[in-house]
């Protein structure tokens, strides 16, 4: 089907998120207003006004009532999805880069960038049931987890026991969400060689996918790692970080996503945005590439953006996906029936 082109942002897209029912799509961009769209036809539903800087990330609660956004204006804000009113603002002293609700939506993990004398940090905040009771106290703060390097993404592990983070130092770390202890980290030899740009969990929290800007000589160009928390099923804090699959693409990867329906992964990225204008538009390779999750083979690609792809998200029903680019567009693609019968 023809993609639906959603033009509502004035600046490059940074993040896309579907709600659990798959009927709403939230988009964040470097302009200051996160936007809500109908995931079906791409009509704009509304915006969330209040941020005063680029919005880097968002998450929506399971019942689609709350939205949390992290922004370069050094705040993370809690919104009422329905009315668009701001419920609370968490203030930090450096930009908030990533946000993620825990299972049960009672906690949120927020990462902040290194800024001036501040190092990067991971904050865990309690989310009150009643917005009246909301406070800005941190349950846990992990200062300086990666030193001066930025953390690009931190998400909850299974049962909120752990936090997984990845960032500029190319190392993935698992933290104990209670004590803040470092449980595991990836080996430089096996893992990514450059900045981890994105991280996406599987629907059942069993494994996750990361994308990176890798341009190492060893493997071919950015490769994508696929890591998992997995056996032995004795204790979950023993769940290990094991690399299970690697996908190679010819370009730096900015965004990754996994199909909840089929064994497909999609990656997006492209040439560095600052170099785009100097070359032919095709040189950038601004394509959302589909890979078979198990066989690691490329299935196909979806072209259309004229800037690097910064954000990708699958609809929870697996029948459509959307991509957001440096070009400021969100492209919503409903799969044709052929897609569901791909054989390789």
């Amino acid at each position, binding site marked *: 089907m023809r993609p639906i082109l959603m033009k509502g942002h004035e600046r490059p897209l940074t993040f896309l998120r579907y709600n659990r029912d798959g009927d709403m799509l939230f988009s964040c961009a470097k302009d200051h207003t996160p936007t809500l769209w109908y995931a079906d036809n791409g009509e704009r539903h509304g915006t969330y006004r209040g941020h005063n800087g680029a919005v880097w990330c968002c998450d929506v609660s399971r019942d689609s009532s709350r939205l949390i956004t992290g922004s370069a204006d050094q705040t993370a804000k809690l919104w009422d999805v329905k009315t668009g009113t701001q419920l609370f603002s968490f203030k930090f002293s450096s930009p908030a880069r990533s946000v993620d609700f825990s299972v049960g939506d009672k906690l949120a993990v927020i990462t902040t960038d290194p800024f001036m004398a501040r190092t990067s940090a991971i904050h865990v905040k309690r989310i009150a049931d009643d917005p009246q009771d909301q406070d800005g106290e941190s349950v846990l703060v992990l200062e300086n987890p990666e030193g001066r390097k930025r953390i690009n993404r931190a998400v909850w592990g299974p049962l909120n026991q752990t936090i997984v983070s990845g960032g500029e130092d190319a190392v993935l770390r698992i933290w104990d969400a209670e004590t803040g202890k470092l449980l595991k980290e990836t080996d430089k030899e096996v893992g990514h060689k450059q900045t981890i740009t994105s991280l996406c969990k599987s629907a059942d929290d069993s494994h996750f996918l990361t994308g990176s800007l890798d341009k190492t000589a060893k493997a071919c*160009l950015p490769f994508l790692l696929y890591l998992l928390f997995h056996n032995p099923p004795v204790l979950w804090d023993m769940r290990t970080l094991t690399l299970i699959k690697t996908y190679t693409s010819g370009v730096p990867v900015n965004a990754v996503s996994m199909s909840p329906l089929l064994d497909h992964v999609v990656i997006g990225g492209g040439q560095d945005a600052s170099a785009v204008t100097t070359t032919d538009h095709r040189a950038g390779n601004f394509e959302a590439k589909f890979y078979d999750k198990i066989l690691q083979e490329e299935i196909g690609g979806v072209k259309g953006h004229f800037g690097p792809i910064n954000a990708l998200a699958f609809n929870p029903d697996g029948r459509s996906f959307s991509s957001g680019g440096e070009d400021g567009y969100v492209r919503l693609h409903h799969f044709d029936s052929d897609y569901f019968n791909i054989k390789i």
Partner: protein
Amino acid sequence: MANIDIDSRAAQLGIDWSQVNLDSIHLPPGEDFGIQSDDEGVYHDDQLEFDTGFGNIIVVDNLPVVPKAKFEKLENVLKKIYNQLGVIKENGLWMPVDPDTGVTLGYCFIEFNTPQEAQNAKEKTHGYKLDKSHIFAVNMFDDFDRLMNVKEEWEAPQTKPYVPGENLQKWLTDEKARDQLVIRSGPDTEVLWNDPRQKNTEPVHKRPYWTESYVQWSPLGTYLVTLHKQGAAVWGGADTFTRLMRYQHNIVKLVDFSPGEKYLVTYHSQEPSNPRDASKVEIKVFDVRTGRMMRDFKGSADEFSIGGPGGVAGASWPVFRWGGGKEDKYFAKLSKNTISVYETETFGLIDKKSMKVDNVVDICWSPTDSILSLFVPEQGGGNQPAKVALVQIPSKVELRQKNLFSVSDCKMYWQSSGEYLAVKVDRYTKTKKSTYSGFELFRIKERDIPIEVLELDNKNDKIIAFAWEPKGHRFAVIHGDQPRPDVSFYTMKTAQHGGRVTKLGTLKAKQANALFWSPSGKYIILAGLKNFNGQLEFFNVDEMETMATTEHFMATDIEWDPTGRYVATAVTSVHEMENGFTVWSFNGKLLYRVLKDHFFQLAWRPRPASFLSPEKEEEIAKNLKKYSKKYEAEDQDVSLLLSEQDREKRKALKEEWEKWVMQWKSLHEEEKLERQNLRDGEISDEEEDDEEAKEVKEVEFEDVIDVTEEIVQE
């Protein structure tokens, strides 16, 4: 030793450390008490070569021995001689005298301003006859130690026992008749088999930092040459690549083989300290097999180039152009107004003198015969016409010449078997404001070398590319001013008119700017590099039909394998992304891709010419069906095997995955309750594992929008 250790040791011995003056302690010379200086290892390791600072001093021996009275006179004579050759430093001439008698010792030292001057003075005056009994023996001061160490008695060099060499041509006996290629990416240089059946490459030899700049195959593929700071080295051998020979030439920049790979030419140039001076050039010619230096040429860059008005920095490579086919008999050098042709028997000039040709700007050897073509542009403001001439070597007889009028530029293209020479001539239009192009076609093998003039259908078309069919009679031209130029094919020989050039056809509006004929002819790739982003059209000239149109995005290099069966296209590191190469079949079918970051170079290993006679080749071509059966069967086996392997690999991957998924499922099940608690008891797991939840409920729905009543009249 750590400071604490020292302090405690001092306390033990009862020494007050602060009272000790460390500077007053001297170790006996040559004794270090077993304590190694920190930097000692460093110096030992790399055997650094220091400039002694005496490079500008020469020693002149065999001077007359004169008493004190004549000292000044001799000094003046010497000054007079050497001042002509360079600037002697103030007090730079020192003639030692016997302290007892005051008589000179018969030699002197002269210090020049620069080492170059000293070198020059040495070369010019060594053997200079002052008078009958005094012939100068001049040496560099730096060489003195070396010369003094030469043993007085001559020792017969030991003859090493004969070791049979490796079969350097072993790669040609590959059972699958594959070809090799060398690639450089990042620090690694790799030699690979191209294995189209496996749709991949098979490694032969890989080495990091094998070369310091680039690598090059010898023209017949026997050797691979690598470049290093100390010189060049060639590699080859039966199974892996071993170093066969080294050629010492400091900071070698470029290398070139003679076509029969008997000789290797190495080139080094040094930027002058003064930017207005020409750079210094040193060229050495080595015998490849023995490693002996046959001749070296030194001089300023001007002597090795024609130094056009543009002021080309350095010389244009190759400086020496090899002629006379595979016998490596002659090589020629072009410099201002002269063509110097050397022969390899003596490594001297033919007839001991160069050829004087005023204003010659370009020379070109026939690839097979010892015929040199040369081009002289117009002179005297058009009074003297431009000229293209063919000169037979070594007789220097002019075989044919053609005068051309109002020529702006000229380019010569030899056909690979030396049968034809095409000269592309750019002429001024009457107004002299623009140029148009035409061709002069020489038929070398025919009597009197007839010349034919060919003009394109549209005379004003710009010619973008020209290429002869290897071993064939056809050529292709890309021409036109439009963004999409035309491609035309011509033949020198047709059944109807034997000796006339005929057009075969023109392809209109192609995205092409470069031509790549298959080495076996018949097929050609019309390539659109650079602005056309790597468009490729595989074209069959026999049938005049396109076999495939495809693209290797941003491709920078295209190279046919030596047999003309496969083509490699590469994106080198001039582009940031998608570095690597792709191998295609001759008809444009993509076989496989290899991605390599920082990809620098790709080169197929050339093959020597086939020993089969043309008749035999024709016979094989006729019975191709018979032969091909065997290979087709082999191909099929391989592809069956491959698909079998592939299937098994996939099966294993799938099974492994299933195992994981099972584990995850059970884990998920176990944690169900805990998750439920986290969600305040909400039964919350229907999202992933319950199929029912995915069921779409269809609700039918009728809406009455409006009801109107109309009376229909009958």
